[in-house]
């Protein structure tokens, strides 16, 4: 079995990074969480606008996301900062995350005695975590412990014809090694039902995939009802997609699904849900790049592969985001932000298989510690909790 050098966790997971997550349980704890992370080596904060004022499934989605981020194997230790009167209790988040066996602490600002004392308290916990993590060495871990999130953004037509299919080859190989991958962006899969039907492992899996698309389509129809069809507000893809030669959401979808390769889909996951087995899953996240990548990371993805056509620089705290473009012009314009140029396939300089192999090797290198360009520049803007029924 293929292996890589990663950070072993108590529950059998393997991290590709060994960072500390500082997670506020409510927006009121954002400032303290950020201040604490800023003082502790290897710590990253996850500020967000949730924790109160949400209801039912929407609240549940926020809770699941915060727990999922804490459980992500890239974080060797987790600190939860609460205020004390919020709906999402710091103690509950800590309890769920601690099930992974990793060190988890929590406190509430109201109990500790305000901002200054809370920051001091948090920094002391954080530095103890950092000291412990600094002594942990990478060990050989099974490649089957890797979960790869798949995403594209700033799509142009090269994404569909070059970089998504090339990423698909790498994903096929990850799956063949026993690994896991998440395809998502439900709103940008409309029109791929025929392909999904062929690739679902069982008719039941296809029914779930189709139901996810139908639910999304109903919401989109409702949201765009009565809005001028040709207006930007009614458009289901971005102006950059249009200028890049993508004319419709179906065209984008049919190019986008290629990044999941050719393996069978073994199941459908909810937003931020962790998979119960290995293999290729469809994850019910949609809308913006942030909403989707956050769900992928909360579902356990240790690495996100992000295909772009017109170029995007974004990253995620503690989870490396590998950028791949199929557009050589974009690569040379934005070389500081993009890791792999697959555009050589169009120019006839390199074959699909060569570029698929290159992406696969890059994923392993990143898993073993190679820094992505988004990490080098400190990009972290892809963190945002999606709202329920948000497409």
């Amino acid at each position, binding site marked *: 079995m293929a292996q890589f050098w990663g950070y072993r966790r108590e529950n059998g997971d393997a991290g590709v990074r060994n960072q500390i997550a500082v997670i506020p349980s409510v927006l009121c704890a954002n400032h303290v969480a950020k201040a604490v992370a800023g003082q502790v080596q290897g710590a990253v904060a996850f500020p967000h606008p949730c924790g109160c004022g949400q209801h039912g499934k929407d609240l549940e989605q926020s809770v699941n996301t915060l727990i999922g981020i804490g459980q992500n194997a890239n974080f060797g230790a987790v600190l939860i900062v609460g205020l004390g009167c919020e709906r999402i209790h710091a103690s509950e988040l800590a309890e769920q995350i601690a099930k992974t066996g990793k060190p988890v602490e929590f406190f509430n600002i109201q109990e500790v005695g305000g901002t200054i004392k809370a920051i001091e308290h948090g920094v002391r916990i954080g530095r103890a975590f950092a000291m412990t993590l600094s002594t942990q060495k990478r060990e050989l871990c099974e490649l089957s412990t890797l979960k790869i999130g798949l995403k594209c953004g700033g799509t142009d037509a090269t994404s569909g014809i070059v970089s998504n299919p090339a990423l698909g080859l790498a994903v096929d190989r990850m799956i063949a090694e026993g690994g896991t991958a998440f395809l998502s962006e439900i709103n940008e899969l409309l029109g791929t039902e025929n392909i999904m039907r062929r690739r679902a492992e069982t008719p039941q899996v296809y029914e779930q995939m189709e139901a996810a698309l139908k639910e999304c389509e109903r919401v989109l129809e409702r949201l765009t009802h009565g809005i001028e069809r040709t207006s930007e507000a009614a458009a289901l893809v971005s102006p950059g997609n249009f200028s890049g030669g993508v004319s*419709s959401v179906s065209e984008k979808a049919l190019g986008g699904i290629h990044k999941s390769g050719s393996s069978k889909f073994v199941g459908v996951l909810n937003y931020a849900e962790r998979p119960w087995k290995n293999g290729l899953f469809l994850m019910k996240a949609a809308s913006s790049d942030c909403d989707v990548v956050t769900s992928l990371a909360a579902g356990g993805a240790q690495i996100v592969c992000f295909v772009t056509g017109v170029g995007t620089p974004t990253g995620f705290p503690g989870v490396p985001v590998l950028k791949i473009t199929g557009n050589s012009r974009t690569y040379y314009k934005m070389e500081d932000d993009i890791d792999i140029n697959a555009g050589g396939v169009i120019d006839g300089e390199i074959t699909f298989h060569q570029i698929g192999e290159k992406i696969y090797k890059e994923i392993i290198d990143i898993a073993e510690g190679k820094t992505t360009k988004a990490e080098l520049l400190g990009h972290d803007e892809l963190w945002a909790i999606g709202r329920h029924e948000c497409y």
Partner: protein
Amino acid sequence: MASKRMLILAPQDNVGVLLEDAHKGDTAVCDGVGVVFLDNIEFCHKVALTDIPRQSDFIKYGEIIGYALRDIKKGEWIHIHNLDDIRGREGKL
């Protein structure tokens, strides 16, 4: 009147994808299908490979990517000015 590189992704497709910028009057051949461009068409944009009647489907990757808002001539640039998609919307215009 230059010859340009074009890709046809599936045999049943009725649009091709330009692999370089093309001008009106330029030509392209892919998998035995030839076309003369009636418009300037940019890199990555699509060209009609046959005449396509109004309300008929555009096929790329072997699947439907939208329908024709008007009668289309072989060689025309295909984009949002003459293509619409019903997915996530309330039916054809």
